[in-house]
């Protein structure tokens, strides 16, 4: 238990120190040291847990309990006041209103019903917690290290602007602390506290640059997440008043005895859906792109949105063919399909990544909604692979942006000539997102099979069409990048050492995650599913058999070995490309119809007419709203 407290308090301490440090070198030392310690502590937690097994933690000392409760209440009130004031200041009255409703509601509950309920075990460590802790502790801290180099460039590009990096790094580490708290909470009230902290951290991170667009988008994120938070608060009240418990483990246990849990499940899933940027709430995550790239990487891979899916996956055993399951499956499925479609129409690399995140989270959410162990396996594996791969891709794009001056995929052609190492890492990341035999595809395979078994035909079709489109948008990006262009200068030397460290470490993580997945599936994920789904009729039958897993691992080894052996090794004569006889021999220009020199310019395909972003969002948001409306009207109908 000491490690849990350390994981929450140490990043908090580091955050406070970073708020005070103004000097570049000192900040570097603190960030790197803190990252190493946090990473080591999360590994330590995993090792301890592996030997001691699942545990709920009871805090014996009444005094500590009291202090924690008071501190949380005090902080909650302060934050509510801050949000309220900021909302008034920026004329975002909805944010103020939500803060003014939610916090008093929670305070009233905690002072009345909440006080009478004894929470035996406020903390929990199970395998899912361990997985999340490792993701936050390793991927999250690598992003912080990367941010050191990135923010130097950022400051240089925005010269004249006041240096607000202490505030930035404070927020990053506070975010990590809140995430550790969130994934180890068993007490819903504690989890809610950390949940709201992550909401506020992302609010400040998105609005970091203080441009009108950033402020606007940060408030959109805040409002949507506060709305989700309201769902969370209501769920706590329902749990407290109807079931006399505030512990998630208790709720799960009661459901296994056949007690109906529809209302809290729907409300908590609603909170998760908002946080995981599912339609109709996906616009906040797209808006978050205005922030510096490390923020996007953090929000998309290891924190924020993963908190949303974490909660939904935790509730997965209570879902399936019931109201909560219906809502989660359909919202996830619609989001996966429409966000994949929308990604096709984007040429801004960060927006492609953002839509791909929304889509993959949709798939995770849909799998959790299916509510079978096989589907939950796919969801957990997706969380792992997505975290490592997506953070790598975001950071690659960030580095590319600072060096080629654009985040547009159209400007990335010939990246292999200009920044060979970065291009190789980015290629690895993109391939890992959609090609067999890499992890994401393995999870998609499992997801597809689990969804087919569930018998939800619309969801089956969503997954089928969504996956087909996924291939198209990654494929064309990959192609653009691998194009070999003559006469490009290598500009790779300007990249900061911290960025290389983080990028190479993340690539190594992607490779390790893909090569060892049968092992941790067997040792960590399956044992979790066996305890989480004790009533599963067919036991934990995995969609991807262990034979197939090892076949995939061999294929990965092959796909890594092949380039090492053959890539770029040719003794053939190099000749110019075919340009219908009009090429000028440099592969870059040709003789036009008026006998003038023309540059070759090749552009990708965005299919605006089919997959226009606005249209896809409109359809997706409407459909998801209909699902939510049906769910909540049935819920109210059932209660009245």
């Amino acid at each position, binding site marked *: 238990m000491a490690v849990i407290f350390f994981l929450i308090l140490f990043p908090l301490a580091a955050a406070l120190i970073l708020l005070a440090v103004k000097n570049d070198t000192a900040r570097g030392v603190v960030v790197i040291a803190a990252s190493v310690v946090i990473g080591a502590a999360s590994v330590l937690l995993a090792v301890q847990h592996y030997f001691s097994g699942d545990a709920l933690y009871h805090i014996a000392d009444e005094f500590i309990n009291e202090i924690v409760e008071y501190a949380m209440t005090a902080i909650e009130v302060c934050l509510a006041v801050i949000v309220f004031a900021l909302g008034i200041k920026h004329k975002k009255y909805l944010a103020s209103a939500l803060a003014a409703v939610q916090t008093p509601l929670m305070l009233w509950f905690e002072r009345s019903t909440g006080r009478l309920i004894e929470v035996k075990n406020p903390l929990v460590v199970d395998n899912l917690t361990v997985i999340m802790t490792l993701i936050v502790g390793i991927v999250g801290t690598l992003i912080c290290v990367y941010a050191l180099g990135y923010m130097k460039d950022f400051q240089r590009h925005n010269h004249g602007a006041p240096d607000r990096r202490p505030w930035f790094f404070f927020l990053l580490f506070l975010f990590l602390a809140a995430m550790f708290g969130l994934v180890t909470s068993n007490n819903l009230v504690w989890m809610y506290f950390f949940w709201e902290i992550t909401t506020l951290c992302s609010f400040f991170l998105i609005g970091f640059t203080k441009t009108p667009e950033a402020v606007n988008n940060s408030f959109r994120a805040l409002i949507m997440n506060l709305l989700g938070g309201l769902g969370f608060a209501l769920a706590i009240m329902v749990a407290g008043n109807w079931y006399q418990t505030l512990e998630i483990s208790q709720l799960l246990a009661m459901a296994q005895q056949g007690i109906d849990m529809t209302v809290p499940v729907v409300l908590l899933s609603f909170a998760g859906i908002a946080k995981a940027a599912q339609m109709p709430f996906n616009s906040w995550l797209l808006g978050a792109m205005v922030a510096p790239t490390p923020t996007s990487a953090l929000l998309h891979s290891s924190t924020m949105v993963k908190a949303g899916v974490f909660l939904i996956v935790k509730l997965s055993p209570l879902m399936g063919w019931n109201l909560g399951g219906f809502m989660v499956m359909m919202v996830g499925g619609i989001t996966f399909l429409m966000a994949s479609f929308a990604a096709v129409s984007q040429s801004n690399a960060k927006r492609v990544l953002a839509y791909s995140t929304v889509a993959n989270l949709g798939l995770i959410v849909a799998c959790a909604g299916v509510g079978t162990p096989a589907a939950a396996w796919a969801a957990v594996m997706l969380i792992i692979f997505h975290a490592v791969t997506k953070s790598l891709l975001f950071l690659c794009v960030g580095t590319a942006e600072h060096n080629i001056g654009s985040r547009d995929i159209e400007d990335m*052609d*010939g990246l*292999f000539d200009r920044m060979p190492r970065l291009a190789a890492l980015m290629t690895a990341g993109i391939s890992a997102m959609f*090609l*067999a*035999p890499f992890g994401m*595809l393995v999870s998609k*395979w499992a997801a*597809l*099979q689990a969804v*087919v078994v569930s*018998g939800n*035909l619309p969801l*089956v*079709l969503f997954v*089928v*069409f969504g*996956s*087909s*489109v996924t*291939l*198209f948008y990654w*494929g*064309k990006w*990959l*192609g*653009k990048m*691998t*194009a*070999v*262009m003559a006469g490009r200068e290598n500009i790779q030397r300007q990249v900061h050492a911290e960025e290389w460290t983080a990028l190479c470490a993340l690539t190594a993580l992607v490779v390790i995650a893909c090569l060892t997945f049968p092992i941790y599936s067997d040792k960590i994920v399956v044992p979790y599913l066996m305890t989480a789904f004790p009533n599963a009729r067919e036991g934990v039958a995995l969609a991807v*058999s262990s034979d*197939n897993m090892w*076949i*995939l691992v061999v*294929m990965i080894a*092959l*796909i890594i070995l*092949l*380039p090492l052996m*053959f*890539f*770029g*090794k*040719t*003794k*053939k*004569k*190099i*000749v*110019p*490309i*075919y*340009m*219908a006889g009009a090429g000028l021999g440099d*592969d870059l220009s040709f003789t036009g119809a008026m006998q003038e020199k023309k540059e*070759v310019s*090749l552009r*990708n*395909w965005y299919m605006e007419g089919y997959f226009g972003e606005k249209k896809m969002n409109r359809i997706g948001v409407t459909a998801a709203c209909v699902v939510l409306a049906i769910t909540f009207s049935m819920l109210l109908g059932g209660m009245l």
Partner: protein
Amino acid sequence: MNTTAIISVIAYVALAPAAGGLLAGFDRKISARMQGRVGPPLLQPFYDLFKLLEKEPVTVNRVQDFYVLCCLIFMIITGGFFFAGGSLLLVIFTLTTASVFMVVAAYSSNSPYAQIGASRELLQIMAYEPMVLITAIGFFIVYRSFNVADIIAHPAPAVHYLAGIFLGFVFILTIKFRKSPFDLSMSHHAHQELVKGLTTEFSGKTLAMIELSHWYENIFLLGFVFLFFANGTTQWTVIAVLACLLAYFLEIFIDNSYARMKWQIAVNSSWIVALTAGGVNLLVLYFAIFGFGLGV
């Protein structure tokens, strides 16, 4: 893996090029007859292949050959999984990887014709992929397994349950066999706006590898058709082989009776077929299983 599986894989790897080449020879012969020509000798595809191997070794960049080699390797692996009786999903995903290698090879040349061909190839993959996945799902719902070995061992031939999916699959085969009206990314005829599209920048041995991988792919695709009919008995095996030949003849016939269509028609029609023929077939299967408790 049992002995049968090992023998089938070896047979596939060794014999598919011969069978694929012969198929291409018949294709050209029959096409010629449909157009009122005599056509080349039956073994012409092999002569062409050997001629390609003797061409002067040139390339447009250092990396293209690597991607094409990977394409060939993964195409052989794809068919290998299939004939070993492996999972259909694994087969489909590996096939995609092979196709993406070819697309990347074309992109890497940075040639206008090759790149447009490559992006059209991606579009074609996007067009046919849903139907291919639905086909695998259909087999799974009927037999509770994605494994080719389980499907083929079952006494009830799949076509009884998957008639709609079979039609849909034959429809997208036109794209997979690169036949008109859907030969958007490349065609066998170089006299068109795309020159040779995807394969414009490949020459000599590299082009031979592409040709070889197509032969492998075609045989494996006919294996898919075979799967709809086979149940292990001699009678149905004969029917299955006839069905394969008929399907291929149908594709040649379509090839010769249509001009190429716009890409929009390729995407729209493939997706509509996937939704109607495939989707409705799945719906019926689900009803039969969940509604009436029927199953194989």
